[in-house]
């Protein structure tokens, strides 16, 4: 490998190297351009914000998966832990509501409970991987079954409905509403609009996007700038070296898997706020998405590489495709074909041009 790298350096194929390093961004731009050309109103502010909304679940699961993959592990349980999160969140909202709590109390309380309980699958995964040396693939595969079974049983195999409607307001409102010729209005839709004005109204900044990008920002900072992040990369680079340099690897790995399941339940909470229901299979398709986002983002499954920025781009690629397919009226199940193909493409690029891509922190 190093010889090849040297020879490439000598050839100085700078353009190719740049291409290898930035193909994901280029792919995203290409996608945007393609859908922009063939789609209808693809670049409307509404549609662009829809892309951001669509990328949230992928991004949230992908965030946790990024941490895990950097350490050289994998978390297969994220999709069903997300479903578990939706079920727990919705169930507690209902219980607190019937206990007579106003929505102002029941919604945040249920959210906190959901996030707290959501740490348990991660704790179990982490303990299995870090202390009992179960391969991450199998430990989280087991949790995948356990989380799904548990949420189907808790939800009695039917979506949990009848939540306080105000939950949906938080999930579907925007920060600003702009009606041409009228002043801004914050948070709530302006009232008494004519149908024409309604159509001209532009909604800016979905609340959900803001809330969850704050979380993403915090953890991006943790990964890039703190000792915790450094140790994460160190473990992925070489567990032995990390041990020898005095990192408490088992404890660190346990935290990593807890972060992953934290993000999964965060994503579950978001689902409840957006769709005002909880269902066991809410995230079943998302495990694939999250791994794809992380791998597109430049992480290697062997550990040691990966970044939040890359995962964001990966999530945007998936979300753009999803939104674009809706825009072009392509049946949405075709997304699986595209996502599977993109995953293989990403790995092939990684495989064939390791020197080009120049993976590193």
């Amino acid at each position, binding site marked *: 490998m190093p010889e090849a790298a040297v020879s490439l350096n000598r050839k100085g194929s700078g353009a190719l190297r740049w291409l290898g390093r930035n193909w994901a961004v280029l792919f995203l731009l290409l996608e945007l351009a393609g859908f922009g050309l063939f789609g209808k109103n693809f670049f409307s502010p509404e549609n662009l914000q829809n892309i951001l909304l669509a990328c949230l679940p992928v991004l949230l699961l992908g965030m946790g998966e990024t941490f895990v993959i950097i350490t050289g592990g*994998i978390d297969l349980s994220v999709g069903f832990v997300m479903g578990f999160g939706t079920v727990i969140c919705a169930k507690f909202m209902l219980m607190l509501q019937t206990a007579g709590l106003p929505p102002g109390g029941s919604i945040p309380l249920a959210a906190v409970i959901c996030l707290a309980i959501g740490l348990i699958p991660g704790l179990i995964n982490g303990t299995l991987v870090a202390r009992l040396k*179960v391969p991450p693939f*199998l430990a989280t595969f*087991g949790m995948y079954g356990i989380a799904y*079974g548990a949420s189907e*049983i808790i939800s009695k195999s039917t979506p949990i409905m009848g939540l306080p409607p105000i939950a949906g307001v938080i999930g579907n409102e925007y920060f600003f509403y702009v009606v041409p010729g009228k002043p801004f209005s914050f948070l709530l839709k302006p009232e008494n609009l004519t149908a024409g004005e309604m159509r001209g109204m532009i909604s800016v900044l979905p609340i959900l996007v803001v809330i969850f990008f704050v979380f993403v920002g915090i953890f991006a900072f943790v990964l890039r700038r703190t000792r915790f992040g450094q140790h994460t990369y160190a473990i992925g680079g070489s567990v032995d070296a990390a041990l020898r340099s005095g990192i408490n690897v088992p404890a660190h790995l346990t935290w990593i898997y807890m972060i992953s399941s934290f993000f999964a339940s965060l994503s579950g909470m978001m689902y409840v706020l957006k769709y005002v229901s909880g269902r066991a*299979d809410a995230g*079943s398709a998302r495990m*694939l998405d999250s791994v794809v986002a992380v791998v597109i983002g430049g992480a290697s499954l062997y550990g040691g590489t990966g970044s939040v920025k890359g995962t964001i781009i990966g999530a945007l690629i998936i979300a753009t495709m999803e939104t674009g397919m809706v825009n072009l009226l392509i049946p949405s199940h075709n997304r699986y074909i595209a996502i*599977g193909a993109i995953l293989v493409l990403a790995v092939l690029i990684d495989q064939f041009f390791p020197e080009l891509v120049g993976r590193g922190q």
Partner: protein
Amino acid sequence: MQRSRNRAGAAKVLTFLGERWAVFFLLLLLIAFSLAERNFFALKNFSNILYYSTTYALLAAGETFVIITGGIDLSLGFVMGFVGVSSAMVMRDMYAAGRPEAACLIAGAAVGLALGVIPGLINGLLVARLRVPPFIATLGTYGVANGMALFLSNGFPITFLPPRAQKIGNSFLAYFLPGKGFTFFNRPEGLQSKELRSLIGIVPGTVLVAAVVLLVFAFILNRTRFGQHTYAIGGSKDAAIRAGINVPSHLLRIYILSSMFAAVAGVLYVFRSGVGNFTTMSASYELFAVAAVVIGGASLMGGKGRIGGTVIGILILMTLENGLNIAGIPTFSRYIATGVILIAAVVIDQLTPERKAGGA
């Protein structure tokens, strides 16, 4: 001296238990459910367990080959759905065009099995020639095969198949009528409805097909050079290359084989249910397949695993499901049980002293 000998003896017992715990566990399950549930210990119910095991056993057998080489195939469940849908579509369309039923069924099955090669070929090329990690390559096919099945079926089951499909799929090797004795292949004719109800089918036809396939491949894995090479690659790829094994071409064949197992499962599913159905995202066939293989004593590091062990793994999972069902415990608890047993199997393997390296 005495103590060390004792310790060695204890280690031997532990090793013995650690390697054969699956068999004991299966027996324990059978005994426990038989004692606890009145309806469990019945010929009909055991026949039932086998009937529902076939799909899983076939998928898990394919997975066994892959896991022995140190790989993994996550795409099996969706390949099965893709094959089921396409095979059913051929049957439906030919039947609608007025072809004879037998021709429809044979053509449908043939098309299904032929299409089943493709995902395996792609997986194999990616893993063997392009060195994509098996996990990622088959996760890609998992997405693509799932998308193809949904694309072909538009998200609806394929119905209006020749009725004979289901008749064949639900036939039994033998029928037993209490008081009248056995008949083979065909139901005894001229029965009253009361007699019909007490008629017991023994060995479902699909189970027979699956059993033959499994026996053939257990033989291939245990006794042929192909099997030897499979273990050799899993033991050490470098050593296998140095021993002159054409590793890429062998791996390619392994992934095609595994995909073919899924295709057989898909075609049998069509015959059994009379519809062609895509695999839902939460069906988790891959979980059950991998769990069975691991329970059967394989290691994800490769080099270990047996078809017999895998079949015991599947029987454990399906007996558990059947028993829990009869006991009135929610169906989905089987996902929990499978997850727990999978993890337990790995931990047991981890804690078992002096693990055997080979194991054919």
